[in-house]
């Protein structure tokens, strides 16, 4: 009798502990157990319906942008704690087009691995994180690339006194490259094409590559040309280094949205194009007021006086001029982040209007 009582108490105790434990576990695990119940037949990357994204953003009151928090010139945190950079300015472009307020946004810093997942799952509305437009990403990853905001290409930096001026002369050189990036495979591809033998030295951090290059451990190093230029500016004696004119690859970088919501795709696309169109029309954040009563039909459509372009997108007719008013046109954005007044002093090159020898070209706003 007594033994049975004890056994019963033991059982009771174990169940008590067990249930407390299970409750604790259930609390922690409902992140994984809930979806099974709710998602049902859905595919792994559920696509949004037309208009869903815009409605969700307007409801939320701000747009969530996947960005880079550690790329000089493109995305970083300044001393006041605000995000700054070329990519960040295009995030502000999207916010200004939607809300007439460039600060109605949240930048979600994303690593290279998680950026596409974050976009596919709707954690971010748009990805503006120096992402190269490739067929594979466009199709297989279920993303849509809006117009390219920055045409980059992979380059190689060598010491000026080495006398090397072309790829062929790099025969047998030790070349530093960051692992896990497209630059690594581009380097291999190009050198195989030309039949040049070289020694590849891998690093997992761009600071480490530069350190090794500056200390003379490697003869050359490679990354996107914008990255080479920005790094050259901070080297002990920038004039001792030169960047080869040849490019190893094409790197068109631009905002990306997910498949399935064409309205949202169009909004990001045309908000981005507005900056290019404004540069062509000569509208800046400083002189935009002069254009508000323009007689030119092209300008009148751009600033929203005619044509109801914004309504077709589902946003304000004045979206384009709001972008220019708050963030500025393409040239202003470029100069602010990469232009002659910055330490990068990066020439426009391909990133100039088609009228100036570049390849930036906006389809007409009508």
């Amino acid at each position, binding site marked *: 009798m007594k033994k049975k009582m004890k056994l019963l108490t033991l059982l009771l105790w174990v169940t008590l502990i067990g249930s407390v*434990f299970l409750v*604790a576990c259930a609390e922690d695990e409902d992140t994984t157990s809930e979806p099974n119940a709710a998602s049902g037949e*859905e595919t792994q990357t*559920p696509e949004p319906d037309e208009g869903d994204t815009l409605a969700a953003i307007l409801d939320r009151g701000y747009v969530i942008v996947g960005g880079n928090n550690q790329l000089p010139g493109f995305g970083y945190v300044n001393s006041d704690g605000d995000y700054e950079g070329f990519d960040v300015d295009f995030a502000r472009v999207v916010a200004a087009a939607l809300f007439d307020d460039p600060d109605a946004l949240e930048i979600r810093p994303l690593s290279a691995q998680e950026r596409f997942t974050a976009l*596919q799952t709707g954690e971010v509305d748009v990805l503006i994180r120096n992402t190269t437009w490739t067929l594979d990403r466009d199709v297989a990853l279920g993303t849509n690339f809006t117009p390219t905001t920055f045409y980059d290409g992979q380059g190689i930096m060598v010491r000026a006194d080495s006398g090397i001026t072309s790829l062929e002369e790099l025969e047998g050189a030790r070349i530093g490259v960051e692992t896990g990036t497209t630059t690594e495979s581009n380097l291999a591809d190009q050198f195989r094409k030309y039949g040049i033998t070289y020694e590849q030295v891998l690093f997992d951090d761009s600071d480490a590559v530069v350190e090794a290059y500056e200390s003379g451990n490697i003869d050359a190093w490679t990354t996107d040309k914008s990255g080479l230029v920005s790094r050259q500016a901070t080297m002990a004696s920038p004039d001792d280094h030169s960047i080869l004119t040849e490019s190893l690859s094409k790197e068109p970088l631009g905002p990306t949205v997910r498949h399935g919501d064409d309205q949202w795709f169009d909004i990001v696309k045309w908000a981005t194009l507005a900056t290019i169109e404004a540069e062509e029309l000569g509208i800046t954040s400083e002189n935009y007021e002069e254009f508000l009563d323009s007689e030119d039909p092209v300008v009148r459509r751009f600033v929203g006086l005619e044509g109801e372009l914004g309504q077709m997108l589902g946003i304000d007719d004045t979206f384009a001029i709001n972008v220019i008013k708050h963030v500025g046109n393409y040239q202003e954005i470029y100069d602010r982040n990469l232009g002659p007044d910055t330490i990068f002093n990066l020439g426009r090159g391909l990133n100039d209007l088609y009228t100036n020898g570049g390849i930036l070209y906006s389809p007409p706003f009508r």
Partner: protein
Amino acid sequence: MSVDLKIVENKQMIAPPKTSASLWDWVRNNLFNNWYNTILTFVAGFIIIGIAYNVLSWVLFEAQWTVITNNYRLFMVGRYPLSELWRIWSLLTIVSFMFGLCSGSFKGTILRLSGILAGIYLIHLLAPFTASSSKVWLAVQLAGLVIGFLIALKLPYNKRIAIIGWVITIPLVFFFIHGFGILPEVRTTFWNGLLLTVLLAGVAIILSFPLGVLLALGRTSKLPAIKYFCIGYIELIRAVPLITIFLMAQVLIPLFLPTGLTIDNLLRVMLGATLFTAAYAAENVRGGLQSIPNGQYEAAKAIGLNPFQTTFFIVLPQALRAIIPTIVGQSISMFKDTSLVAIVGLLDLLGIAQSVKSNPEFLGRHMEVYIYIAFVYWVIAYSMSYSSRRIEKSLGVGER
């Protein structure tokens, strides 16, 4: 011969020979006692002086520490809005006060820790780059410490009050940082820097402990379902690196969630860290449980305690006491492991450091940034290990 020895022995009995000679004697006996040691001393000396000279000249003359001083707020609280910063300061004041209260009640280790804290406040108070508004707040922190200490000295039952105070403080932390609708909401993307590091480590350490105790008890349970579940959980988690868990939390979990349902990415990482630490805590607790001799169980049975009472009043208190040093050691490693979240895009101390060094204004200053945050990690981790050593001593854990 034998007589001589006896005399020597006698002398030793009376007064042992002086071992602590003058500095010069020590140097001669240890560094220059024969020719090869002399050579070694000189070679090593030159190398050490060379390195020290280079390090010092870099730290004092070459390094540009403005990257730290200009971004100090970023390192501490990151992008937390300036207008809401008073909340973090008030929170810190409460914590300082609690530290003061505890040091008045418990003395010993916590008093030393408060001393370190006061030292950190004082250094920042005197630093030339600190903004004047921050200096006022730092003075408030010091006052909080002292007032807490003095109150605790006058208060009866101060230990109980101190413990209750901490229990109240923990929800207050989240209330102040987040706002929860009463104060303006600050979204989790704005919780960065040291604030995020401490918060992440704190949540993981505090929540993982009870979870670990339950898992350990479950593992020793006689019910196979519970037992094998716990074993499976512990062994699975312990077989996987922490970074994998973080990547899973950031990349995989969102894919499994239904459309429209998103869980805050900070919450996902906190869950991952807690579940990970819990598995390790469970094994530590199990070690403690096994260290309790069988006699204790038998004695508890003999005086008529039921298994519940045996576990909670006899076994666990002794087991947990035995594993305090291990738990602190694990907490230190968890605190450092939080830096892995920088890889999955959270701006903890390391993450914000990477952002700061990417600011074109400070490009190329990464050495200064990394050295500074390594120093911050060291100060905190060393304080923890120091207190663990003292607790160990005062409990006599290693000496029994």
